[in-house]
């Protein structure tokens, strides 16, 4: 651990400001609390919001896991994990069940979370209405008045054009019957895990300077219509490495003749299953690293 920085990089004044925003976010689930986002030693879009929320939450006793689209070993995940190893000296892990704080980009782990865990989301555009109404003054008024008709029109236009709700990620949700919230660009397959989750879920948007939160056991409902109910979709395949039929899959092109394979996006989940002896279509028995 480097002594050149304060614990977890941020100064105490900044952490207090972020902590106050997190607590107000917890008190009003789904509402976006403005906060004075700091410049971090990484570009906007690489998880500066999530990093600031994680920095405000970490204690020296924590065990941190960082995932990027479900993977522990991608550039973004590795660099953020190293950042906190260096500035906070925290223990790290790739196992979902062993982590106390999990920072994630665009996935919720397959392994169910439990009480005592905190899931921190990196959020690019926190405002679910932003692409429908570009003015912040207007979207703020729409949240104030619970005026969410525009969002239903958008979903309806999806159905009119494609025959089904084509929104596949960042699928809008309603929190405790009040605020419409952007769950960050997680696949809609993950939306059901938002609701009634035993863990604390915190959302940080660095460039957009917003923090919002879901306390444990909060009701989160994906917007839909009676005749077009929400569906948590995924590729209609099993994982080619571990054989899992119920996990979210990445499609990998394997040559230039159209061959492809499907693998779990959650690397820890897939490795755990392979270690337990599960083998998929292209997996080799005993090949789990």
């Amino acid at each position, binding site marked *: 651990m480097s002594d050149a920085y304060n614990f977890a990089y941020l100064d105490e004044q900044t952490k207090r400001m972020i902590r106050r925003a997190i607590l107000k976010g917890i008190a009003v*689930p789904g509402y976006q609390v403005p906060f004075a986002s700091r410049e971090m030693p990484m570009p906007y879009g690489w998880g500066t919001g999530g990093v600031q929320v994680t920095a405000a939450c970490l204690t020296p006793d924590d065990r941190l896991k960082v995932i990027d689209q479900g993977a522990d070993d991608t550039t973004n995940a590795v660099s953020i994990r190293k950042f906190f190893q260096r500035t906070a000296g925290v223990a790290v892990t790739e196992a979902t069940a062993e982590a106390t704080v999990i920072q994630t980009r665009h996935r919720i782990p397959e392994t169910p979370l439990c009480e005592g865990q905190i899931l921190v989301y990196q959020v690019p555009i926190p405002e679910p209405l932003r692409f429908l109404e570009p003015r912040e003054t207007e979207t703020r008024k729409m949240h104030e008045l619970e005026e969410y008709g525009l969002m239903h029109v958008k979903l309806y236009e999806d159905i009119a054009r494609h025959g089904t709700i084509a929104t596949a990620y960042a699928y809008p949700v309603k929190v405790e019957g009040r605020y419409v919230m952007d769950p960050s660009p997680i696949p809609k397959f993950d939306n059901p895990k938002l609701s009634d989750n035993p863990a604390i879920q915190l959302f940080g948007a660095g460039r957009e300077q917003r923090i919002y939160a879901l306390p444990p056991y*909060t009701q989160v409902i994906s917007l839909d219509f009676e005749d077009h109910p929400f569906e948590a979709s995924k590729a209609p395949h099993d994982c080619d490495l571990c054989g899992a039929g119920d996990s979210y899959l990445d499609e990998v092109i394997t040559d230039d003749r159209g061959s492809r394979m499907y693998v779990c996006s959650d690397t820890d989940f897939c490795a755990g299953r392979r270690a337990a002896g599960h083998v998929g279509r292209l997996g080799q028995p005993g090949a789990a690293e």
Partner: protein
Amino acid sequence: MTPEALTGGFAAPATEAAHAFRAALEAMARPGTLHRLTGATPPAPLSPAAGALLLTLADTTTPVHLAGTVDCPAVRDWITFHTGAPFAPADQADFAVGDWAALHPLTRFRIGQPDYPDRSATLIVELPTLSATGVTLRGPGIRDTAQLSLPEIAAFRANRALFPLGFDCYFTSGDMLAALPRSTIVEEA
């Protein structure tokens, strides 16, 4: 300023504030749960839990209102030295500290604005005792129901009726901490 005001802060501010915040976060996210909050030794009558909360959350940008017996020179000096927080009347405060009777009338406190419900006060209510018994709580953060020894019901029901506006409460007793956000529904046991 008395020399006592200079003592009783966090020995290791970064890590102790981190632990205190996690307790405060867990308390607010799971209404009705009790947490231990140590590290601060403020002058009487301010409790160690309330002192630790102020050290963790208050600074020069957050006006603090002291109500009743905690509004004494010893406590004022201690808060000023350790946090730099300015003191303010109830209607301007981000944090208000006092016993339940001294905090009344509660309508003085900021409940946020319809477009910015976060601009509301957080009350730190000093109670003689704190236990997971008494009135029934339900709402976000609670799986089925929880119990907490609240001083009354009517005030919290009125506050819940304002949602998403309203104030949020911490309850402190000695080094014990519990919380009640505005989103919690309070019912008779």
